[in-house]
């Protein structure tokens, strides 16, 4: 009884407080859960904001790469004669169509096939068409959605063929060129691309090519070279009396093209960071711009020494040389490195243009000098200047250049050769004299 009494008198006090304490703890616990939930929600929101800005940048970069197609069109149109302008515009307009549609059909899945563990990393194919799952639209896929990935890569794909179109301008037949471009963009470009960006064998061996000095630019250059060799020079370019320069018809058009290409290159290189990472993207913008500027100066100096002239066509190509040169290592170079790389690329341009002309390889817009030679230079520069763990060794870089070059050149050569013996790739001399605009399009560029 006493016990009971005691219990009844003592306990309540403690017990009450204890209950209070328990309740308080439980309440705290509950609130903690709310706080955790809130924190998790905030994290999710923050992650989504980050995902959104990363994704947005890839999309804007895709739009910038798109505008490079206008850049190429204008540059090439400016550097050909008045009578071949419609033709070059037509080819470039078709290439962007072909590039996007074939990349959708098979290119994307050839270039990013998801090589199997035990794959040799040379070739794989993830099937026709595009079929993203629901997760592919979230950060589970990457820092961007599947569609962003596709459209960014698709805009890249078409640039390769655009490079060819300038080099073979003023004499190639339209339809064979379009057939070549289709196969080139649909198959050849994605296969060599898969070796590195698709995680294939070159990637495994440590080859480094940030935004495509080799994978995009040299590849275009090699195909251009194959075409040039099989086509022969334009009539009247290499005469018994020496080399006769055939001037482009509009320097303003060429200049518009080059400035737009530089503008688009912010997306080409900047977007290749594959996120909006502040440090990397801003570094890439800086190295890219400085290399372009140094390329312009390099080409100016070198061409002045060679011909004592202030040659606008060289300076414009010098910009492009600098841009192509920095592309392989834009994310790893220092300021000084990028200026040196660009400057050397600029110097290469006049030397290379002259060398190609000496070899009677006629390239109306200098595409081989800009994209092939400076592409090789830029890829090697990664080994020479790059100072980081995964920067490719000289051997790795050389292997990549040679392997991709050999594959692309041989495939392109065979393709052009087959087209040559079947349907012919060159217009008749009469059509060439008349100009492809009238001969192939029955339309004049200017009236």
């Amino acid at each position: 009884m006493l016990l009971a009494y005691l219990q009844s008198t003592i306990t309540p006090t403690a017990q009450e407080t204890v209950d209070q304490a328990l309740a308080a703890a439980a309440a705290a616990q509950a609130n903690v859960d709310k706080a955790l939930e809130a924190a998790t929600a905030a994290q999710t929101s923050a992650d989504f904001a980050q995902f959104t800005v990363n994704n947005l940048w890839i999309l804007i970069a895709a739009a910038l790469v798109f505008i490079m197609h206008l850049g190429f069109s204008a540059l090439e149109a400016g550097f050909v004669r008045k009578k071949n302008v419609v033709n070059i515009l037509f080819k470039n307009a078709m290439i962007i169509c072909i590039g996007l549609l074939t990349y959708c059909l098979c290119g994307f899945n050839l270039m990013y096939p998801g090589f199997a563990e035990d794959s040799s990393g040379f070739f794989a194919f993830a099937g026709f068409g595009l079929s993203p799952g629901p997760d592919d639209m979230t950060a589970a896929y990457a820092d961007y959605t599947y569609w962003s990935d596709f459209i960014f890569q698709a805009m890249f794909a078409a640039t390769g063929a655009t490079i060819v179109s300038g080099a073979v301008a003023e004499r190639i037949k339209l339809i064979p060129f379009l057939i070549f471009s289709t196969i080139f963009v649909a198959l050849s470009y994605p296969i060599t691309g898969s070796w590195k960006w698709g995680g294939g064998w070159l990637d495994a061996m440590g080859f480094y090519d940030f935004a495509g000095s080799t994978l995009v630019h040299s590849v275009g250059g090699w195909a251009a070279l194959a075409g040039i060799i099989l086509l022969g020079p334009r009539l009247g370019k290499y005469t018994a009396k020496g080399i006769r320069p055939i001037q482009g018809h509009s320097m303003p058009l060429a200049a518009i093209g080059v400035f737009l290409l530089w503008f688009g290159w912010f997306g080409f290189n900047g977007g290749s960071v594959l996120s909006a990472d502040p440090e990397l993207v801003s570094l890439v913008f800086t190295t890219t711009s400085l290399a372009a500027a140094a390329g312009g100066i390099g080409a100016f100096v070198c061409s002045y020494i060679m011909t004592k002239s202030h040659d606008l066509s060289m300076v414009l190509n010098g910009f492009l040389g600098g841009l192509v040169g920095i592309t392989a290592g834009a994310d790893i170079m220092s300021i000084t490195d990028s200026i040196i790389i660009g400057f050397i690329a600029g110097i290469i341009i006049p030397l290379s243009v002259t060398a190609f002309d000496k070899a009677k390889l006629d390239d109306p817009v200098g595409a081989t000098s800009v994209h092939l030679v400076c592409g090789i230079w830029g890829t090697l520069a990664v080994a020479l200047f790059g100072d980081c763990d995964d920067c490719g060794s000289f051997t790795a870089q050389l292997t990549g250049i040679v392997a991709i070059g050999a594959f692309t050149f041989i495939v392109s050569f065979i393709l052009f050769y087959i087209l040559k013996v079947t349907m012919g790739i060159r217009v008749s001399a009469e059509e060439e004299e008349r100009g492809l605009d009238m001969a192939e399009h029955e339309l004049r560029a200017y009236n």
Partner: protein
Amino acid sequence: MKKIEAIVRFSKFEDIKEALEKIGINFFTYLEVNGHGKQKGDTVTYRGAVYDSGDIPRMKLEIIVPSEKVEDVVGAIMAEGRTGNIGDGKIIVTPVEQFIRIRTGESGNDAL
């Protein structure tokens, strides 16, 4: 009637036009042409290659006048078109057999 062709400097064109107006020549035809000349030894440089070219754009006037006006016109062009430096251009006078105004069918001096 005569046809006077004058190949002149661009920079003198406006002055010549005014001089012609003063002597009553209000109508003529003109177009841009290129003058080829060896003397300058000028060169053109394009994508690393240098080659000779002394070619300069010039203005060409074509004026149909009654024969008796030829002297006046030549005089006016000479007066306004001359700088004294090489490259002032040339005047060419050739015979005209018919000159017709399309609007009315008038011909000869009436068509002027």
